[in-house]
């Protein structure tokens, strides 16, 4: 078990290395000179030179690459050219807002997706099952950004129930003292009793979370359904049936473990899809998260920021998959050898 753990870890580091180098070189091709971004609107020529100097863009590429690797080990991702803040700082306060959005969407996706997948597996080929599979198809082929705009149109344009964009209304954040500061707006405001901020935050997160979760719903539905069907066709099911157990009992008593494995794959898969989805959803809903930050960085070819955010995204992605593998090993004893 331990050896399995170690070489998974080594693999993870290796992948992170490959990803960071690939991004490092792709970013070099991006059009636009980063220094002009740094200096701002009306610089004079020598200001440009000075900026190029201290940002180190005049050194040959391989030297830059070596210093880049050295910095990564010390988690110093350099300064973002656009916002002039250390990239690490930018990423940390944006990470919590993206993470909050993704977790909330995960919650919705699984609250809706999992039971529906379960029911459609139990009641095969009934009308309900066709309806859910249809929903699955639509879910899979939904363009996430379009869905977001349609929801905005309905809930903001026509019904005026929910706000158009943003993470919290303009004003309410001003005079609130958050006793509990974990970066998660909803949790902080809930525990520090800021009811209006909490409900305001809730109202703001509904639409983006719904967009993200509907995007992933298709995958969750289909995988849960096929996972349930597979478990029910497992030969040991027949043995338990022959001892008088009903479907529900078998699942509750013994087969729940078997369904956990494919379901955990769904979690990993949908997490990855959602990370991709943040790019578009966050720019539609002006959500101050990593997606919006990376889109802006790429458009303005802000090198350090792009590399930083890509690394963070990939790290989360790889860690999630790593945790899922460990979860596999724990649940399924056969994987030990």
């Amino acid at each position: 078990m331990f050896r399995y753990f170690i070489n998974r870890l080594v693999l993870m580091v290796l992948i992170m290395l490959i990803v960071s180098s690939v991004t490092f070189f792709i970013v070099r091709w991006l059009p636009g000179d980063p220094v002009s971004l740094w200096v701002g609107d009306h610089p004079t020529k020598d200001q440009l030179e000075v900026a190029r100097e201290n940002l180190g863009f005049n050194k040959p590429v391989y030297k830059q690459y070596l210093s880049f690797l050295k910095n990564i080990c010390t988690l110093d991702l350099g300064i973002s050219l656009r916002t002039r803040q250390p990239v690490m700082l930018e990423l940390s306060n944006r990470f919590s807002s993206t993470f909050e959005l993704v977790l909330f969407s995960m919650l919705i996706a699984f609250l809706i997706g999992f039971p529906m997948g379960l029911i459609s597996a139990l009641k095969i080929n009934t009308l309900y099952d066709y309806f859910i599979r249809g929903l699955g198809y639509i879910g899979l082929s939904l363009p996430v950004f379009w869905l977001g705009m349609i929801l905005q149109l309905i809930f903001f344009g026509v019904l005026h129930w929910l706000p158009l964009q943003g993470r919290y209304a303009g004003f309410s954040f001003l005079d609130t003292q958050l006793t509990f500061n974990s970066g998660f707006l909803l949790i902080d405001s809930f525990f520090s009793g800021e009811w209006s901020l909490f409900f305001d935050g809730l109202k703001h997160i509904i639409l983006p979370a719904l967009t993200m979760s509907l995007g992933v719903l298709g995958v969750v539905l289909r995988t849960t359904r096929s996972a349930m069907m597979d478990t029910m066709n497992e030969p040991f099911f027949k043995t338990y049936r022959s001892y008088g157990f009903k479907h529900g009992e078998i699942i509750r008593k013994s087969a729940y473990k078997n369904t956990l494995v494919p379901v955990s794959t769904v979690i990993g898969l949908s997490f990855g899809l959602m990370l991709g989805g943040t790019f578009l959803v966050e720019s539609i809903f002006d959500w101050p998260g990593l997606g919006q930050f990376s889109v802006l960085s790429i458009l303005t070819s802000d090198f350090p920021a792009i590399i930083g955010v890509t690394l963070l995204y990939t790290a989360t992605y790889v860690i999630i998959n790593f945790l899922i593998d460990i979860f596999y090993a724990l649940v399924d004893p056969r994987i030990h050898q």
Partner: protein
Amino acid sequence: MEKIESRKKWYLENKRTQSICGGYAFGFLQLILTQNMIKKIRRVKAASFALCLVFFIGSCSDQARVDNSFVIATYDDVKDWDPATAFSLEVLPMSNMYEPLLWYDAGTKPGKFLPGLATSYSKSSDGLTWKFNLRNDVSFHDGTKFNAEAVKFVVERNKKLNGGASYIWSAVDQIVINSPYQITFTLSSPVPFDKIVSSQYGAWMYSSSISDVSKDSLLNGYGSGTGPYRLKKWVRNKYILLEKFDKYWRGWNKGDHFKSVIIKVVSESSTRLQMIDRGLADYAILIPVQLLKTFENNPDVTVSYFHSWTNEFYLLNTKKHPTDNIWFRRAIASSLDRKTLVKHIYKDTADEAKGLIPQNIPLFQEPDSLLKFDLDMARHYLEKSKINLTNTKTDFSFVSTYEEYRLTAFMLLDNLRKLGVALDLKPGLWSTNWDKAKKLETAPNIISMAWWPTVSSPSDWFFALYHTQENPLFNLSHYSNTVVDSLTQKAWKLESIDPGTAREIYKELQDILIDDCVVVPAVDIKIPSVRKSNIDGFKNNPAYSTVFVYDLSKN
């Protein structure tokens, strides 16, 4: 402020207890439900319904706003707090925190200078020595006195830093302090020094205590000027809080002034608009024209358009094929239909451009030969250009985030398509477009530009845009003409001594540039000011793109 403080403390205390028991109740309810959740799906539905109910009731009580504060919703945050080098959005807070020696009132025609921290000033006949008499009853926010010494310190520091707009002081040769409240500047050339002193960038007077403030604190919130409001709190990317400076020299008894100014960063324009609609903000900046339509008939929101010194135009690259051909440039110039622009695209939030510089800037005189929109004329020009149109590619780079630029590009593309010219659109963010346009090998043929003066004089356009520069910064049409260069220098120096001839020269400059067809003027922008109707005291002064909260009051 004290009242607000106490109310908040009470509100906080009992709120915490309230939330804790709320949390327990909610958890307890959850526990009962999960136990028999699996058996009875019905009960889950009931619980979730109850939750939604609570949620909707809770959301109706919107947060009432702390009163007597003026809230501005802007689209981006301040980047640099040093008044010497700040060169972009910082005008909004700084115009309420600092004051220049003279104010320039461009609202009336022609503009006149009002006393700021200098009560009066005089200049020598050759325009090289300027004497200012300063007020003696002014002190900075940090308590230090305002005197000639402070002015000398500011100008010398600006010149040394040489950042942002401090190049405007380059003409200052010598500064002599005659008396504690009188100062004399001797210039190297007879530039209109009064305009420089009243510029909205780099001309604010600040306390000498700035030198003992460390570099990074300048980056995260510093301000000590003589203006009506002082910096109280700044949370990056969220808001700036300015509060009343009690010892302000003009005093606080002229009507019901605002106690504090809150500048909130709201990046999405529709949210800024929504804040005004729901009373969460009093003033909103940079609202796209299309969204303004929704507020036409809303009584408690006033939308008014002020003339401004910002104009939009399209520079033609004179060094890159095919726009290096004069006839080709003329064909493009006569394919831009300014009437459709104003009527359909800008929807009357801009005036048709009369010349290369905004029509309401002082010393403006209309050039006589601006090319009119005429596709047949354009076709004629194309024949004269003798360019084989099939394989020529003309690229047009514009800022992708502005709807007006995009629609103009569409129109130009359609008109040129009718002439057989293929236009290749390259939308992008300003920094990327600008960087490409600077280097000739990556420069586009046409690039969209907007310009507003640092110093309220037409020379700003001619110096920055059409003056010869080896590796160009803003001369993105890579144009160089010695006559234009010399005329610009001449006009700039005559501006204060002999404004009449300066006006003549500026007209002549425009005619030369139109003949060479270096630029296609489009519109002069009218800046929409979107504000609550119950606030008055707004004055239109194109020289300063900001709001002077001191003059405002709630009726």
